[in-house]
């Protein structure tokens, strides 16, 4: 499947990048319109005289929903929300996971045990529960969702980082650095973090895709973005109630979400193959 250029490196499939760029432009448009006080009424204005318009109706290229809101603008806004949440959660999870993973992997057995314990306790809870707790503190909405997802997401990355650390620690170049008197902290900040770069890339893409799904899931249940904010999860939940009258809100929002996740997963596979020749051999 993967083409192997002469250099031996797998190239990232350019079509995936092009398609993701299209998604990014659409999402950014959505964010700009959503944040602009004069234009965001396109996404929220209701018009009860033109409800359930089919796609390709005049003035509404993708039709309207049960309240007559323009579906194209709502989907663009929802995409913007998804991308913001995905990137935000990925950033926080990566920083937290790196910090705790390095700590657990390089600072002795007690640190390793303590990190493992925190990870196991974190893993015992569904993100939905944390989402409620933060919704109580901050009010229901996207900040609560981002915090809840980041605070459950970091754990899986910390485990990966700790595992890599434990094996890297035994390698000769680290031993050489120790012998030369380089401090543990400096070793972990320079040599080890650089060695962790490939796995971090793969996991970041993975985090973006899983948190986009989780955000729309929580919003779908009414625990995330609150109407009238056009999250894809909110559009799906509202569309579900009118499934027998109009199929297009659910199908369009679902296809948009699935396409994005499909692309991100393909990108993650590509990045992994690029850095890990072993996984490429098994394709």
């Amino acid at each position: 499947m993967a083409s192997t250029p002469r250099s031996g490196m797998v190239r990232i499939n350019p079509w995936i990048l092009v398609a993701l760029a299209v998604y990014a432009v659409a999402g950014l448009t959505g964010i700009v319109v959503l944040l602009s006080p004069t234009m965001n009424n396109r996404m929220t204005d209701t018009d009860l005289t033109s409800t359930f318009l089919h796609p390709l109706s005049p003035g509404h290229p993708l039709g309207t929903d049960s309240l007559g809101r323009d579906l194209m603008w709502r989907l663009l806004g929802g995409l913007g929300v998804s991308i913001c949440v995905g990137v935000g959660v990925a950033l926080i999870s990566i920083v937290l996971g790196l910090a705790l993973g390095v700590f657990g992997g390089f600072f002795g057995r007690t640190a390793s045990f303590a990190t493992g314990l925190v990870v196991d306790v974190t893993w015992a809870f569904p993100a939905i529960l944390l989402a409620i707790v933060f919704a109580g503190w901050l009010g229901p909405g996207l900040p609560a969702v981002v915090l809840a997802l980041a605070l459950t997401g970091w754990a899986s990355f910390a485990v990966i980082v700790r595992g890599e650390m434990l094996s890297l620690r035994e390698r000769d170049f680290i031993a050489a650095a120790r012998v030369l008197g380089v401090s543990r902290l400096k070793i972990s900040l320079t040599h080890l973090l650089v060695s962790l770069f490939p796995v971090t890339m793969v996991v970041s893409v993975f985090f973006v895709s899983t948190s986009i799904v989780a955000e729309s899931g929580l919003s779908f249940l009414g625990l995330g973005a609150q109407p009238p904010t056009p999250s894809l999860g909110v559009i799906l939940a509202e569309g579900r109630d009118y499934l027998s009258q109009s199929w297009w809100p659910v199908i369009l929002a679902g296809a948009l979400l699935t396409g994005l996740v499909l692309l991100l997963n393909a990108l993650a596979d590509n990045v992994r193959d690029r850095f890990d020749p072993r996984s490429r051999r098994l394709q």
Partner: protein
Amino acid sequence: MRFALQRLAYAVLVLFLASVVTFFSMRVTPGDVTASIVNVATTPPEVVEKLKEQLGLNLPIWQQYWNYLTGMVTGHLGVSLVTKLPVTTLIANSASYTVILAISAFFVAFGLGVPIGVIAALNRGGWFDRVALAVASFFLAIPNFVLALVAVLVLGLQLRWLPVSGSTSWKNLILPALILAAEPCALTVRVGRTAVLEQLSADYIRTLWARGIRQVRIHWIHVLRNSLSPIISLGSIQVRTLLGYTLIIEVIFRWPGLGTQLVNSILHRDYPVAQALALLLAAVVIISSALTDLVYRWADPRVRLSGSEAA
């Protein structure tokens, strides 16, 4: 045996910490518990105080935690603030639904996923392999609540093959179980395929060939057994994700299980129910993870040997 005891002690420690987190995270949430029972603005303060006393909310926080902990251990989980039914009754009524749903999904996922993964690996590069991988990528990408809505639309509303909500007959189980199984099944196909491919290139396979062992036996006994450990560790991760997904799937199909109860109790701020269910889910995850470690040692002697040195 020593390993099993150590693992058990660790599980108890994690469970204890989980109970602390559950309890305090519910308590720090603003919004008085009493506000979910009575309208605080119109009820006389004495009545609210009386209510707090009844619920044990006037005690110091550590004492409340102690009561909660002893309650959990002895099975006195309190009474739902909304339905006034004992929490144990609520759990008993809905647990069987969730267990049936989760077990069906688990069997579909592994019962389909493992054979498909093995066959795909044995026909590497062939049409079956390519189709299986493409379908698996699709099911990994489509969020299961989207899949559920599409299934409801097509199979339920358009073709009218299957009921889309409720729990009255075994037909109600088919859609939620299949949709819950879709993603774990796709993941099993991919992981199983990779694991088998890795084994097929190992030296011992050539030895088995040289000894004249039949191909079917090599593939489905020797290779499969050695490919099991990644599939088992996948299974343990699946328990956690499966539980998370069950919440959404149960709500969509109005399946009266623990997930529906948990979402409702949280939305209605029904703390006793939410706390008990959260801890119950946490306990299932913790216990299944401990069991996985034990099964893992049974299936892979290498883990057993390296483990005994390190532990």
